[in-house]
């Protein structure tokens, strides 16, 4: 039941963290790796606020144990881009004003960036479906989808 050492590649940097078996990736990222950009919402896999990319797959970090991710590559919204070089999706969100209160946005960007990497040719309705696990109570979904489509155009122009 004691703590284990968990080594992950977090946003391009190797970090060693201590985690007990019952600690979720969400809590370890927020409390031990200062990754407070990962938001805590329902903590039962319903809201998607805590979504991160683990080895290429977007998952709810509240349902992932930290000890399961030893050796994994973990990307949070902070790892998608920087203020100087934002991810095309982040740029499109800013341009279209797709963020309202903001609490769901880190998870939304994580879901959409992972989904578009897998399915760059996805239809508009498939993009909508990809954020079905990210609850936005500002009901801003229209602009999420607009921004996702715009980001593909921007990416094509680069």
């Amino acid at each position, binding site marked *: *039941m004691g703590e284990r050492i968990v080594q992950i590649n977090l946003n391009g940097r190797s970090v060693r963290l201590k985690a007990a*078996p*019952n600690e979720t990736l969400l809590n370890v990222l927020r409390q031990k790796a200062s990754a407070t950009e990962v938001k805590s919402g329902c903590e039962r*896999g*319903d809201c998607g606020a805590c979504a991160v990319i683990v080895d290429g797959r977007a998952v709810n970090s509240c349902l992932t*144990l930290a*000890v399961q991710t030893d050796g994994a590559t973990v990307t949070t919204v902070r790892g998608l881009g920087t203020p100087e070089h934002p991810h095309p999706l982040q740029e499109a969100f800013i341009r279209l004003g797709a963020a309202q209160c903001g609490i769901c946005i880190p998870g939304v960007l994580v879901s959409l960036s992972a989904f578009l990497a897998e399915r760059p040719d996805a239809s508009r309705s498939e993009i909508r479906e990809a954020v079905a*696990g990210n609850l936005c109570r500002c009901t801003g979904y229209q602009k999420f989808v607009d921004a996702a489509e715009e980001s593909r155009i921007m990416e094509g122009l680069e």
Partner: protein
Amino acid sequence: MLPQTDYVKASSVAHALDMLHQYGTGAAILAGGTDLIVDMRERRREPTMLVDISSVEELAEIDVGTGNIRIGAGVTVAGLAGSAIVQHQLPLVTEVTRHFADYLTRNRATIGGNLANASPGADLVPPLLALNASVVLATAQGERTVDLNDFLVGPRRTLLLWNELVRAIHIPTPVPRGQAYEKLGLRTGGAIAVVSCAVSMDQAGGECRRVRIGLGAVAPRAFRSSEAEQIMEGHMFSSDIAARAAEAAANSSQPISDVRGSAEYRHAMVRALVERALHAAYERSSEPQE
């Protein structure tokens, strides 16, 4: 906070079975965690040892064998959705993956977990019942295979023993060409089924053959409506016979009233969904073989 527990990452099926043997009934198998971690948080389950099978490669394979398609228990719902074998031979399963929870959950939830958890509304179960699936259990002595219909005992109860592991799902081939799925939820995305229904069938000159009807969320466990199947089996397809079978399916269900709908509503919806699925499956069964 999750209850205190211990953790081991299994390297193989044999290793996982060893761990189950060693830790006994306090051990729990952890795959995608989308059910187990939620249960632990809500103190419905407090295992003292988590045996993590999510990196066991031999559980993540989908193979076409002689007389069956074998799907490893660790294949995720996203893995099913992306499998060419599944898309080509089991369109019913591909269809259900689109209605299964949401994108983030599909990346973690596994087919074995969906069966072992045995929720009455588990999305993959009605389609697998309609495809006549069986469940391969790994035991210390080797493997044993049980019909999915027998594997499910009741709500959250299966035939799985404490020292066993769901190893794979077998779907007998050739698979009927006529496959259809209907799920009614309260919303489009991430919905829990109010009623779900899957049908598979073949036909010979309009005569229905090998008709199988799986129903979910309308009884203590997902089940096949043999009453409805018998009405269709060996008869010429017609709207009238589909309506009668749908009525029989509704009468064979034992729905409860809960936050998602009343028993009366579910009864009526079983009839509507089964009728719709029978028509769709029959039309697809008419499609020429590729």
